[in-house]
């Protein structure tokens, strides 16, 4: 029971780091970037390449994944995405799905279709025995790391000047622009930072979930659930949504109640049903505020 909770927590924390960039860019520009998972996949593969080809440890892979993904994100945002902000949601969806397909095929071409196996650093390998419960060291590291990251993000958003500008822009981009805030610049920076975080999450999670070219499509659904449940106006919303989703997902894989003689695995249902119910009764998200407009 405790192990499930713990694994779920680690999984949820990872989901949060993966999805938070998407949630903010969506709230800021009302732009549907389904290719967000592609950045996460890129981060994962960057870490894998560094470890397998150059023999570096994961601790080098993490910052590298962050920096490279952030740069790629910034470049793509300035050259391609910027042309789509005034287009319809449908076109944004098609465009970003096109990017997803391209990234999947490209990764398949260069790295092969089989899942990558990632060795965690020696110090984080194995379990920590705490008498009554044994804890996987790497998962503990993931939880601590992501928790620190979340605190930093929350502080950055609430205490810094950039953070308050960002919050103003998310709240109402037009008024923020009228007050002299350069929303375009803020958006570019946020987009790059969010892409970097996705890359970081991908690198961090490569050892926990299987990393293969199908990744962006598989996780696109999870991202959408996080955003649907968590809303896009804060980062605490997606945070709790991610934890909820992570625990529900891991727990759903363990419990298989029997209904009418048939074993029913409830994993997927719980998540999708939660998402649909939340969307119906609270379209702004479980933790989101109703828009003031």
């Amino acid at each position, binding site marked *: 029971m405790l192990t499930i909770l713990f694994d779920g927590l680690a999984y949820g924390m990872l989901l949060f780091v993966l999805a938070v960039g998407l949630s903010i860019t*969506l709230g800021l520009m*009302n732009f*549907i970037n389904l290719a967000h998972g592609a950045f996460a996949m890129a981060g994962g593969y960057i870490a894998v390449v560094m470890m397998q080809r150059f023999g570096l440890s994961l601790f080098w892979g993490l910052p590298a994944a962050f920096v490279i993904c952030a740069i790629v994100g910034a470049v793509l945002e300035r050259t*391609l995405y910027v*042309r*789509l902000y005034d*287009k319809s*949601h*449908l*076109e944004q*969806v*098609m*465009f970003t*799905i*096109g*990017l*997803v*397909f*391209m*990234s*999947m*095929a*490209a990764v*398949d*071409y260069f790295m092969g*279709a089989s899942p990558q196996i990632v060795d965690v650093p020696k110090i984080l390998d194995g379990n920590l025995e705490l008498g009554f419960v044994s804890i996987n060291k790497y998962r503990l590291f993931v939880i601590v790391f992501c928790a620190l990251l979340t605190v930093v993000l929350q502080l950055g958003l609430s205490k810094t000047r950039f953070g308050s500008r960002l919050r103003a822009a998310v709240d109402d981009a037009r008024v923020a622009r009228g007050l002299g805030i350069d929303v375009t610049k803020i958006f570019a920076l946020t987009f790059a930072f969010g892409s970097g975080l996705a890359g970081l999450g991908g690198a961090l999670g490569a050892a926990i979930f299987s990393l293969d070219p199908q990744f962006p*499509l598989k996780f696109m*659904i999870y991202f*959408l*659930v996080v*955003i*649907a449940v968590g809303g896009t106006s804060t980062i605490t919303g997606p945070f709790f949504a991610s934890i909820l989703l992570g625990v529900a997902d891991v727990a759903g894989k363990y419990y298989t109640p029997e209904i009418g003689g*048939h074993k*029913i*695995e409830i994993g*997927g*249902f719980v998540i*999708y*049903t939660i*998402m*649909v119910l939340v*969307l*119906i009764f609270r*379209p702004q998200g479980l933790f989101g505020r109703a828009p003031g407009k």
Partner: protein
Amino acid sequence: MSTGRRTSQAMSWFANRARWRWPEIALWIAAYALVILFPSRALLFNEVAILALFAVSLDIVLGYAGIVSLGHGAFFGLGAYAAGLLAKAGAGVAPLSDPTLGLLFAALVCGFVGYITSFLVLRGADLTRLMVTLGVALIFAELANRMAWLTGGADGLQGVAPSKILGLFDFDLYGRNAYLYSLTVLFLLFVLARKIVQSPYGLSLRAIKGNALRARAIGIPVNRRLNAAYTLGAAYAGVAGALLAQTTSFVSLDVLEFHRSADVMLIVIFGGVGTLYGAIVGAAAYKAMYDILAAATPQYWQFWLGLALVLLVLFVRGGILGLVAEVRRRIAGHGK
């Protein structure tokens, strides 16, 4: 006097829109002629016809009602299972296992489910709709996977053996009759869809898509109209799924996978949104592209598909039919 003239003007405008033009007639004749010209490719043509019907169904929802759906595959899969299960249950009992009855059954089931879910879908704006449709599709896929006692689970539904079409034509091994059957269903449903989108009801959908607030202000019951369009699209998609189940005698979980919903969206966009014929052109182009690219690079054809999509969004508005119209405008412009 003047109202009378205005009415007759409106009537002639409608009549003009509804008139069959020669490229349309040529297209359908060509479609039927294909099976005589290339009898060995009938199975491929059959797939195109089914895909085209599926695309038409999404075009009704997306192109006319303006509902962005990422989960239209749910109805395709549901229709396939409905027809498959009916054919299995009624195997041997002639009227029950008739394919046409299977189509009707699939349309009813999907129409009903579509009607129920349309209320969920219509609650939100674009992004919420996207996620609700996706969520509904995922729930269906999970259901089919878990209810293995009914659907066969990962092994698929085997032993789907529909009897002769209307008790007259058997499904042959080369897919000739299957293609003619699918094409005829496509043709009949297409004519119906064409009538619907050109009717006053179809015009009211266009008005809603243009501006829902103003449409409501001139007295169009917006939500009821959209519910109806979603239901119709769902029923059409169900028929397409049923055709697949009947002509391949097999239903697998693949019919409910996410890529079905994404593919059909690509097809509609490729062809041109809100044109109906775009769905057919898009389906043919998509299948041809798939055939050529997948033959050249079996694993990586997705890359070219993605690239085509990106370029389409960036440079061409309105898909292939939009491109054709643009070229024709350019040529006409040069002539002057």
